[in-house]
């Protein structure tokens, strides 16, 4: 049995999802030889530290009741630097301008010899190369399956299962909010504005939906795929981005008459990174509806492999984080 001490840095929806999943899956982890204790949880107001292992149920309850887990006046960075542990689960909100606190946390984690498992896209989309180098230098792992497609396996699928294949392209729907809006426009014969409002009411779109509907979120995921799968040194500026805000109901109807649906598709190839609304044949595997994500990986040996799954949600994202944690310790 391997004793693993972890911190959860960032205790919003994803961080709490991780805590719930760890509570539920403690026995499964033990059966894989991993005895995991969360020794610190940090949110924006402070932290709880307990080297004997935090009572996750109590921490979740306190967060729900008081809006914070804070007991000690420590930041996430303080925890990473001062609390002795093995793995940092980095789930702070993403900052696509500078990488924000997430970037600081990841750099600190490697500096102090800790593995990083994260759902935070910003730092990876901005500073992938630097982070990988820092991880290598520290001889620690940086795993980020949760950053692309939530529960849908894509990075690990390519790295492990499709090992040995040359990857020619990845094409898919990587943003559930856009997929929901486009799907509902067609179902309800309603305008973009109406269906955006509906998805905001349901909590599928943010109050400021720019990040999703302008294709920025998809573009960040493409950068992560380009860097991790295609070994590029791409940044957001390299992506040709068009969002869905100009897609009209009439265009969806015209597409439907020709046997197509319109989807916001992200496309990664050696020489092209592009996010744009595209025509997808209604019977094609990429034509999934609702908030689903989907990706087709085109390879030289295996042909085209398509995966689909839930791209967001706290438990779904936590599932990807859990599989990354297991993959560090099962080897």
């Amino acid at each position, binding site marked *: 049995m391997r004793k693993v001490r972890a911190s959860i840095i960032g205790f919003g929806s994803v961080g709490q999802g991780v805590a719930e999943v760890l509570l539920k899956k403690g026995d499964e982890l033990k059966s894989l030889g991993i005895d995991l204790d969360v020794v610190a949880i940090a949110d924006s107001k402070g932290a709880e530290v307990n080297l004997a292992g935090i009572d996750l149920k109590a921490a979740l309850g306190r967060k729900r009741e008081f809006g914070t887990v804070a007991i000690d006046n420590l930041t996430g960075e303080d925890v990473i630097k001062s609390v002795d542990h093995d793995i940092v689960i980095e789930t702070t909100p993403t900052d696509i301008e500078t990488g924000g606190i997430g970037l600081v946390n990841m750099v600190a984690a490697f500096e102090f010899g800790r593995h990083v498992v994260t759902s935070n896209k910003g730092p990876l989309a901005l500073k992938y190369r630097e982070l990988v180098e820092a991880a290598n230098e520290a001889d620690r792992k940086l795993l980020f399956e949760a950053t692309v497609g939530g529960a849908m396996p894509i990075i690990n699928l390519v790295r492990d299962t499709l090992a040995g294949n040359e990857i020619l*392209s990845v*094409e898919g729907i990587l943003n559930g909010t856009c997929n929901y809006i486009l799907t509902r426009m067609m179902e309800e014969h309603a305008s973009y504005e109406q269906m955006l409002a509906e998805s905001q009411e349901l909590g599928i779109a943010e109050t400021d939906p720019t990040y999703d509907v302008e294709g920025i979120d998809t573009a960040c995921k493409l950068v992560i795929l380009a860097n991790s799968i295609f070994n590029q040194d791409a940044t957001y500026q390299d992506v040709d981005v*068009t969002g869905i805000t*100009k*897609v*009209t109901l*009439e*265009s969806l*109807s*015209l*597409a439907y*008459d*020709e046997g*197509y649906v*319109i989807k916001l*598709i992200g*496309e990664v190839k050696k020489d092209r990174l592009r996010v*744009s*609304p*595209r*025509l*997808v*044949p209604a019977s*094609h595997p*990429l034509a999934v509806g609702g908030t689903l994500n989907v990706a*087709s990986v085109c390879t030289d040996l295996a042909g*085209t492999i398509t995966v689909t799954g839930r791209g967001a949600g706290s438990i779904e994202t936590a599932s990807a984080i859990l599989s990354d944690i297991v993959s560090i310790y099962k080897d």
Partner: protein
Amino acid sequence: MRVSMDIELKDTPGQLLLALNPISELKGNLKSIVHHHEERTPRSTIPVQLVFEIEPANLEVLIGRLEENGIGVARVDEKRFTAHGAVLLIGHIVHTDIQDTIDTIDKTGFAEVVNISLSMPQIDMRSSASLKIDAVGKNELHEAISVLRQVAIKKDLLVIEPIEAEIS
């Protein structure tokens, strides 16, 4: 372009080879061959149906060589466009000179707009159109869409292209 051709062979050995050699010499790509050995034309020749891809410029040369070889060419049916694609446009399509937009494709010589459906909900609102484009080959279809993309940038139109798998 794709050509389907009916030819007539004399019933002597080596005739089929005389018909096929010129196609490969002219870098044609044979797609199918149906050889009715048991049938006879009224001229006592054997009818054969060929389908192949060939550069348009080489078709006349090919017919010449076949006739030189004593092969009768009974019917030639060329199909100029083998690739078909659909594209959507969104924006002020009519007011930015729709004729000019279509012309940029038609002028390429290797692709044509063969159908257009237009939806204009209200004056001053953006309209949507679906265009069907035929091209002599898949590369040309790609090229035609890329030409359209350039024009669309100038006219502030959004082009919605098919996914890669649809046109490759």
